[in-house]
């Protein structure tokens, strides 16, 4: 899951990036409001962690500008301001969650997963697709009750596809969602991961839509 972290404090930003990466998120870190708005404008992020006191452009202004541009990426505000009016203002401006520093990394991860899940219309944390069950918090995939060992990339790819179940995702969209900057993206990486997933699970788990991309069918038991 690709997350944008907008935090101007070098030490906190470094810690959050490292911590969220440990939890399996792909994290891009920007240090000012203008960069945050530019990056979020691409729509490639599953969610954003936004500090309010950002240089150049206040976090709340960034949020307001995004929502005016109808960019609905879930935004979690992470701030030192804990007064109730501040929280209300943040949520009214379009924030999806409001967390006061300091925050537990695991809680932050859980909140981000929950934001992403709800943004995709999923109520349950655990995703179902036929006999495949994906548990994002445990980072575990089971096929008919049996645990299946997947690499980080394979898991993330399946996660994105299952979150967008019933929708066709292009290779570019999948690449954008999965890889954070600085990673070398090989031209056929997506195809390789899909091939491995089909081999480890079952061939029809991911369907190819020729010339467009890939999709995971929406099943009855996924609400």
């Amino acid at each position, binding site marked *: 899951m690709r997350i944008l972290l907008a935090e101007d404090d070098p030490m906190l930003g470094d*810690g959050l990036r490292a911590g969220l990466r440990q939890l399996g998120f792909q994290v891009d870190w920007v240090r000012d409001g203008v960069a945050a708005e530019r990056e979020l404008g691409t729509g490639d992020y599953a969610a954003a962690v936004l500090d309010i006191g950002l240089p150049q452009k206040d976090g709340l202004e960034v949020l307001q500008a995004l929502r005016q541009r109808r960019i609905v990426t879930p935004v979690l505000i992470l701030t030192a301001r804990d007064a109730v009016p501040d929280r209300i203002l943040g949520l009214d401006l379009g924030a999806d969650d409001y967390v006061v520093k300091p925050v537990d990394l695991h809680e932050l991860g859980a909140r981000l997963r929950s934001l992403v899940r709800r943004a995709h219309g999923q109520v349950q944390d655990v995703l179902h697709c036929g006999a495949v069950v994906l548990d994002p918090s445990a980072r575990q995939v089971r096929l008919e009750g049996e645990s299946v060992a997947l690499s980080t990339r394979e898991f993330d790819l399946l996660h994105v596809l299952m979150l967008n179940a019933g929708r066709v995702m292009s290779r570019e969209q999948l690449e954008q969602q999965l890889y954070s900057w600085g990673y070398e993206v090989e031209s056929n990486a997506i195809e390789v991961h899909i091939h491995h997933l089909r081999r480890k699970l079952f061939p029809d788990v991911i369907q190819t839509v020729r010339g467009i991309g890939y999709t995971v069918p929406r099943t009855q038991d996924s609400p």
Partner: protein
Amino acid sequence: MKLMRPRSLQARLLVMTMGLVVVIWVGVAFVTWVSARHELDELLDGHLAQAAALLVVQQIEAEDADEVADAPSLHKYAPRVAFQVFHGGHLVMRSANAGTAPMTAKGLGFATEWFHDGREWRVFSTRGAQQDIRVYVGEQTASRREILRAVLLSMLLPVMFALPLLALMLWWAVRQGLDPLRHLSMVLGQRRPQALEPVALDKMPSEMRPMVSALNGLLERIESMVKAERRFTADAAHELRTPIAAIRAQAQVALGAGSDAAQRDHALQYTLAGCDRATRLVEQLLTLARLEAEPATPAPSAVPVNLSGVARRVAADLAPAAMARRQSIELEADAPCLVAGDDVLIGVMVRNLVDNAIRYSPDGARVLLVVTTEAGHPVLRVEDSGPGMTDQEIAHLGERFYRVMGNDQTGSGLGWSIVRRLADALGVEIQVTRSGPLGGLAVEVRWPAQ
């Protein structure tokens, strides 16, 4: 003798009013007594003279009487008056209570004598036209005193009864008059400690207005102080949240690093750095809190402070921090430069300025400390070759927690608040400009001319 002053306003007013009433009454009584005695003396003396004149006339008509006649006593007051008539040196007539010797040896007119009966008498003597008749008329002065006493008593007795009544009424009136005071103390007494709004003035008696206005002024000052204090606490708590959040995040990263030793080491290094940063922030907050608790202008120490010495000490203290970032720190302070003020406070201020210069200048920058005297003003200047500041940024300096955006330093902006506060306390001027020789920021501290 030390007078006991009653502590209660009511008792004081009552005692003073009653005291004045008594003094005035006594005064009036004294004046009445003096004038009544005078009038009485004139009246009775007149009667004595009249009686003497009558006796003289009578003697002229009855010249041939040889015997000494004793006049009958006709009134209960008769023993108190007496007379003698001498004819040619012989006593011819007298009242029963008069002796045989002339009542007075003094000449004609009025005299006051002590008689053999042990009483004081007022005597008038006169003589007839033919020199041989001599008449003495006397009256006991005690009767005059009795009349006077009666007059005074009739005046003072009602007052004796009236005084307690008057005291009671005055007590009530004073109590009524002091009612607004009691009301005010009740209103203030029932206030919660947080209630600092001013007391309404419109219904106050004019005498109480200055006091209540002063009280309102005090309340206002307390309120602004409490607000500043509250804001400071809130700001400080917020400012501490970020370093604590960083420490927490880094510690969790270290815990979750697993077999990645490099990541764990990095996270632990950052955890320690975060602790140092939080410590520095707390120190700055404490410095600021201490400064704000002190009066605006602390008494300068009697010993003048050598500014060059302070600058040298600070530069030596901070040189390791500068060298760690390959910055050069130079001091230009040739002559001793004496200024008034507290050397500890001056040291804290210079330290903050140099610390800011080091912190906000890039690696390899130059920091220059100059101590000099310009037109009689001792001047300390801290210059650096850093990025400097825009006019807008300079205008924001010294706002608590204001930080120049876009730098990697983990400052809190508190250093400037401390410098500003110290400048106020020390009575010095601070000017921020662009450094001529180094191109970065120049901060100039200017003392008043010596």
